[in-house]
């Protein structure tokens, strides 16, 4: 089956996938709008402050004199990008660790897995706060992405390792070994394709996770407030006691948008998971019979 047909079938028969895709596309479209924004993202007092949603400002304006809609387009773009960057970087680490650990086994596996388990168990939030404590204003968006990625690979590496381990005993691996292929080549050419589906579904979850981290840290003021992000918007709204001041649109829309993104990505992840796991796919078929 080619990819397009899988996509068509998923869309037609998997409601979760369809809803998820629509939600993510809406969010992505809003993020793309940022390129057409009439206002520079970091400037304040470019519009009259505290205007409720109206024709001119569909989502209202903030107490900092920013248009909520246009601000939101930048915020969601940066937030989304953050999630994608973290997911991408952490996928590389978890793939490397998972595949090598699973393929090599023995002491390599043991060492990698004890590091892995440390990362699984250690509470990440204090560590992130610690990094902020050290880096302080050096804690830029990119830096935070790298650190988050360095902390967010362990859980999935274990998953990939278990698949790699089962691949190791398969016939084609043995053949490859006998034909003198190097470890790297075997892992990349022979094993990678088998773990890719799992990588895709964990990517969605990882984006969710990292965005959650970003939002939480920003709202608590542990990030760079110059870059507009969803967390940053809530941070500024809190700074201006927007809720008790009745500027609800400043908080509500970012929260709604980010919830849309979370649910969208999550639905994509579970529907893809279902697609990958034949057992649950069958149970869906059975359910419809």
């Amino acid at each position, binding site marked *: 089956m080619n990819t397009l047909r899988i996509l068509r*079938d998923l869309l*037609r*028969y998997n409601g979760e996938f369809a809803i998820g895709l629509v939600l993510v596309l809406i969010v992505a479209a809003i993020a793309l709008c940022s390129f057409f924004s009439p206002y520079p993202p970091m400037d304040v007092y470019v519009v009259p402050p505290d205007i409720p949603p109206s024709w001119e400002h569909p989502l209202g304006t903030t107490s900092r004199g920013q248009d909520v809609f246009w601000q939101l387009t930048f915020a969601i773009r940066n937030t989304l990008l953050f999630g994608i960057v973290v997911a991408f970087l952490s996928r590389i680490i978890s793939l490397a660790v998972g595949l090598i650990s699973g393929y090599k086994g023995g002491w390599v596996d043991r060492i990698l897995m004890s590091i892995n388990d440390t990362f699984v168990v250690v509470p990440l939030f204090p560590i992130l706060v610690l990094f902020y404590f050290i880096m302080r204003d050096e804690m830029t968006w990119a830096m935070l992405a790298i650190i988050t990625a360095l902390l967010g690979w362990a859980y999935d590496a274990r998953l990939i390792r278990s698949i790699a381990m089962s691949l190791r005993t398969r016939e084609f691996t043995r053949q490859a070994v006998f034909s003198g292929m190097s470890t790297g080549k075997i892992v990349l050419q022979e094993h990678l394709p088998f773990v890719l589906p799992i990588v895709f579904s964990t990517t969605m979850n990882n984006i969710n996770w990292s965005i959650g981290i970003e939002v939480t840290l920003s709202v608590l003021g542990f990030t760079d407030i110059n870059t507009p992000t969803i967390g940053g918007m809530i941070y500024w709204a809190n700074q201006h006691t927007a809720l008790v001041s009745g500027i609800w649109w400043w908080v509500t829309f970012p929260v709604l948008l980010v919830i849309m993104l979370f649910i969208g990505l999550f639905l994509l992840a579970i529907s893809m998971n279902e697609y990958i796991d034949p057992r649950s796919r069958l149970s869906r*078929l*059975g359910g*419809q*019979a």
Partner: protein
Amino acid sequence: MIAELRAIPSPDELNAPQTSPLLTVDRLKAYYKVKLFGVDREVRAVDDISLAINRNEIYGLAGESSSGKSSLIKTIAGAIRPPLRVVEGSVRFAFKDGERDIYRLSPQELSAIRWSRLSYIMQGSMSVLNPVRRIRHAFEDFALPHVSAKGADFTRLVERHLKRLHLDPAVLQAYPHELSGGMRQRVTIALATVCNPEFIIADEPTTALDVIVQKGVLSMIREIQQEFGSSVLFVTHDMAVHANLTDRLGIMYAGRLVEEGRTRDVFKKPLHPYTAHLISSLPRIGDEAPKKALEGSPPSLADPPPGCRFHPRCPFAIEICRREAPPMVEILPGHRTACHVAQADPARVRTVA
């Protein structure tokens, strides 16, 4: 012509009490109905099967994997779940306390006859016992509702049963993973027979066991059957096991029963080309060349060939085979087959071996 071929009835059969059969399966059809990404599919796993099993006999059911034998016994046991469903036909048991149609019973009534009258030894003995609980609990869960003995009496009853089957009652305290494969299979059989059921379905109980263990398990089943006078529906693809154990034998191919008769008769004079092939492929001492495999593979049950389902692989196929599905016809006394060729000339099939 046909009369010449009639085998001499065995003394066993002559002595057997002629009562009504314990199990009567009548024109049973059970299909899987599946919608796979928009395509409706119907898998005819059990397609128009009729058979009867008498009291006090071991009835063997043979066939390749995916021939529908597992679906058949699940249907007989009343243990089907969607997407498998009964489309037509009936499954009737004539138990000592009355006749029951499996698909006319309420869930409570079905529960009541299970284990007490109708018991089941499932395929894959390795995984049929709850891995996280001691074996003792399995006996309690399964049998306690069906016996009057409670508490210590019940334990004594179970222990007596185990001893009768030459098993150490200490296994009750064990977890499944602590037992060997053979041991687990014996325990499973003991579990299935603890209530002296009238009818036992044994689904591939010896598959995946090594030969010596297999022998022990088989003799155990034989012993139980003789001691309790139960009937056993014994399913395996291993023809050698059938030859050693079963009284009567049914052969399934692509969801249909293609031949049925006393085991001895079937082995001596297979009427269906497929049966003949199965028997000829049995290893014999002195074989040198590897057995010739049958060409082609079993048909998809979702899209079976028209006419006789075996015809694409049959060395004797004739024109009619491609068009009409052969009916099941008794060619020799107690020996039926569904084959146009055999029905025309039973002798032709014999030459295959």
